């Protein structure tokens, strides 16, 4: 079975532009989470979606938004890009969101560079 897939793999944008990143979860998984990983740091939580509804949001500005589609795939949108948005954006899927020890499976990420 295919794992979590993300597109594009790499992306270069200019300050002020917007970007859309895409994620397809593992078949049967209904929850998608997005994380930002800056070089030298661990991933930081941005959003979690389940059944097309936002279930959790991290400490990120309103320039970041996301949505989940009926087929459980998801998009992450970032507007008015800043140099500091340069990072590896990771998508993780799980069967459902939950409390405690539920397991998330990560995709390979999209490397975004803002110049």
């Amino acid at each position: 079975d295919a794992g979590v897939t993300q597109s594009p793999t790499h992306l270069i944008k200019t300050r002020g532009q917007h970007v859309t990143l895409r994620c397809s979860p593992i078949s049967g998984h209904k929850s998608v989470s997005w994380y930002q990983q800056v070089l030298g740091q661990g991933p930081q939580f941005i959003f979690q979606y389940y059944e097309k509804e936002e279930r959790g949001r991290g400490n990120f500005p309103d320039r970041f938004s996301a949505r989940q589609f009926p087929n459980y795939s998801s998009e992450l949108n970032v507007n008015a890009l800043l140099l500091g948005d340069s990072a590896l954006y990771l998508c993780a899927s799980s069967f459902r969101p939950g409390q405690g020890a539920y397991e998330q499976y990560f995709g390979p990420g999209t490397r975004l560079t803002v110049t």
Partner: protein
Amino acid sequence: TQLLEQSPQFLSIQEGENLTVYCNSSSVFSSLQWYRQEPGEGPVLLVTVVTGGEVKKLKRLTFQFGDARKDSSLHITAAQPGDTGLYLCAGPSDSGYALNFGKGTSLLVTP
């Protein structure tokens, strides 16, 4: 925010050596997870520990969850170059919907 501190930050060893990396917090976690991440890839889940004092083994890797569920360790026996990567620990946030990650331990195993 429940912070996870990982140590050491960097570790460079030769093939065949043993090592231990640590994940500590002042908060109690219902569970902790360990991931390994290779350059340009997403984190891959290695193990989830749930019970205080729990020990889990994955081939040459041994994971332990502290009795008070505030810390965890990862011990690698006879390290191999294939063990090279960033080792991340993570625990559920207060809401349960997010994972809080440590900054990771970057391990380099040279032949």
